[in-house]
């Protein structure tokens, strides 16, 4: 059983090592990468089944008992995150292989992408605060390389912003770990859960707030999100897509994990709810102000993070379950939206609303894919986003938080507004840039997007539809995840034995 926990990290790393050795053999790299990720997807599904059947799973690296060695723990929350993110990562990899130019001139793409996968998997599974830092660094180092892959000028400029801010966050993380260690003398999270509870209450709150800021930067919550909309849109589309889907969610995951596990006595409900509201509103207003698909969608990442924090801020099983489900739906939906945007870019060469138009007549398939994902993002029933939002709304209203739920409903409407803005601008109407229209009508070959790219997008949209279809089962699992988060005694017992 313990093998299951290790494989999502070790397999991609092994594959990455092989891909580095096979530095200039593209086909070999592709085979290794796809093979490893398929295996990881299968593994994480098994892991989910195991957790579903037997409860929390854990393994001690090197066989050293808990506070000494590093523990990997998978509870329901981790397992759900693992499954959906691995599926997403696999789809994007296939998309990237299909897209001309992404891995062709870049021998580092595959190894780095695999390493990022391992980092994400490790972030979701580790039960050790310092190891979480290492996991972050693996993910981030890979993301630095991916976001600047190609080395174009605007990539370098925005990549700089991205890297500097994340480096600051990483440094702060080390500082935070140092303080946690100073106060408790341990870095194992289950051990910390026990020991932090004995600290003076002010110190507990201060530590919890500090870690909230550290992870808040990664999760892009207000007022720490500004780097995101500037840096994401410049990368290659598969990279942007996987970042959009995954990386901020790793931050949200860490916020949820640390706030529920480490600081059960100090629940910063008010602060989280205020942050959530501002994140939602400012994010969606930012989206409305933009005129480019990629930038609009990037601001929506921020806005949607607000919903996740909102559900957490309620600190009730219903609220956290809503958040878990919401994250689960958000990862593939957001990624699919960016992939569909990539298809538009691939066939027209632009994503500016003013330049593209009438895509529905040229590529009805892409239009349909985008519409489904966009409506799901906006929370239109019966798509998956609706279920997540409904869960959060119910939890909020039954907790009496009327104001914030009112805000979230307004934000829903504005989300719909900006999705329709994209739809009206890109898929309906006519292209206003005459040169572009000319290019489209003459070079019909340019319109045809590679089969793998379309296939990957279809698959991911299919995943979101499946989430909607099996929402009952998934919500059941989300509720169990929430129970496990709010009452972590099983987690602690499993780790400390």
């Amino acid at each position, binding site marked *: 059983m313990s093998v299951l926990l290790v494989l999502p990290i070790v397999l991609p790393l*092994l594959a*990455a*090592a092989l*891909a*580095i*050795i096979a*530095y200039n053999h593209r086909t070999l790299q592709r085979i290794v990468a796809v093979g490893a990720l398929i295996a990881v997807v299968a593994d994480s599904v098994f892991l989910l089944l195991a957790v579903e059947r037997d409860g929390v799973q854990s393994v001690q*690296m*090197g*066989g050293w008992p808990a506070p000494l060695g590093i523990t990997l723990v998978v509870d329901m929350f981790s397992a759900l995150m693992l499954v959906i993110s691995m599926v997403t990562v696999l789809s994007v990899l296939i998309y990237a292989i299909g897209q001309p130019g992404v891995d062709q001139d870049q021998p580092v793409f595959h190894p780095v992408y695999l390493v990022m996968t391992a980092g994400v998997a490790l972030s979701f599974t580790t039960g050790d605060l310092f190891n979480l830092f290492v996991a972050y660094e693996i993910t981030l180092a890979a993301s630095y390389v991916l976001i600047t892959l190609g080395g174009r000028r605007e990539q370098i400029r925005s990549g700089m912003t991205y890297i500097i801010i994340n480096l600051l966050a990483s440094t702060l993380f080390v500082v935070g770990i140092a303080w946690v260690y100073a106060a408790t003398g341990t870095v194992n999270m289950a051990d910390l859960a026990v020991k932090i509870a004995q600290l003076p209450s002010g110190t507990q709150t201060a530590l919890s707030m500090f870690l909230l800021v550290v992870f808040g930067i990664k999760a892009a919550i207000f007022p720490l999100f500004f780097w995101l909309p500037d840096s994401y849109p410049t990368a290659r589309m598969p990279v942007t897509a996987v970042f959009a889907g995954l990386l901020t969610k790793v931050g949200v995951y860490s916020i949820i994990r640390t706030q529920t596990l480490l600081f059960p006595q100090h629940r910063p409900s008010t602060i989280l709810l205020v942050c959530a509201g501002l994140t939602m509103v400012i994010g969606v207003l930012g989206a409305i102000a933009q005129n480019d698909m990629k930038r609009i969608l990037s601001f929506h990442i921020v806005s949607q993070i607000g919903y996740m924090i909102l559900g957490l801020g309620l600190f009730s099983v219903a609220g956290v379950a809503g958040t878990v489900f919401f994250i689960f739906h958000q990862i593939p939906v957001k990624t699919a939206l960016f992939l569909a945007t990539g298809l538009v870019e691939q066939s027209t060469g632009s994503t500016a609303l003013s330049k593209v138009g009438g895509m529905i007549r040229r590529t009805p398939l892409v239009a349909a894919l985008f519409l489904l994902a966009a409506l799901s993002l906006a929370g239109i029933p019966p798509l998956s986003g609706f279920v997540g939002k409904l869960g959060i709304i119910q939890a909020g209203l039954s907790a009496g938080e009327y104001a914030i739920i009112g805000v979230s409903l307004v934000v829903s409407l504005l989300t719909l507004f900006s999705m329709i803005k994209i739809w009206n601008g890109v898929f309906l109407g006519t292209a206003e840039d005459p040169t572009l229209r000319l290019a489209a009508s003459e070079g019909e070959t340019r319109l045809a997007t590679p089969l793998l790219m379309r296939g990957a997008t279809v698959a991911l949209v299919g995943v979101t539809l499946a989430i909607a279809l099996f929402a009952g089962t998934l919500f059941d699992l989300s509720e169990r995840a929430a129970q496990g988060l709010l009452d972590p005694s099983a987690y602690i017992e499993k780790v400390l034995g």
Partner: protein
Amino acid sequence: MTQRRSVILDLCVQAEFHTLLLLSLYLLFAGHNQPGGGFAGGLVASCAFGLRYVAGGSSALSRSISIPATTFLGVGMLFAILTGCVSLLTGHEFLESAIFSADLMVLGTVKTSSVLFFDIGVYLVVLGMSLLLLQQLGGADGTDPDEVQP
């Protein structure tokens, strides 16, 4: 930089290069009991190659080592991870160590742990990293950044 080569420096570097490599290996193997380890060892070896670079420029560096630096990286990673996987295959946890004692006749009995292999992986990665850094930032690949200077 590459034109102004000093013979004395060259000779010193030749002598020191091998000494440093030996030192790095010592650090690697002694690390478990004395200060040192794969990291320190790898870094000392890197310094040896760094000296080569300072003395002879990037061409001397690429002459002194024919394997691509990326291979060092990959093999090092593979080494470290596979060490972990071996214990997995023998029914233990990932990265679980085992202690060996080997009787090397002349050299006496050596007691060591399987994590030595892990440390060798670390050593290789660190070495590969610094080689690649020197080659790339030092401009060994024909894409000498000097050419773009106005």
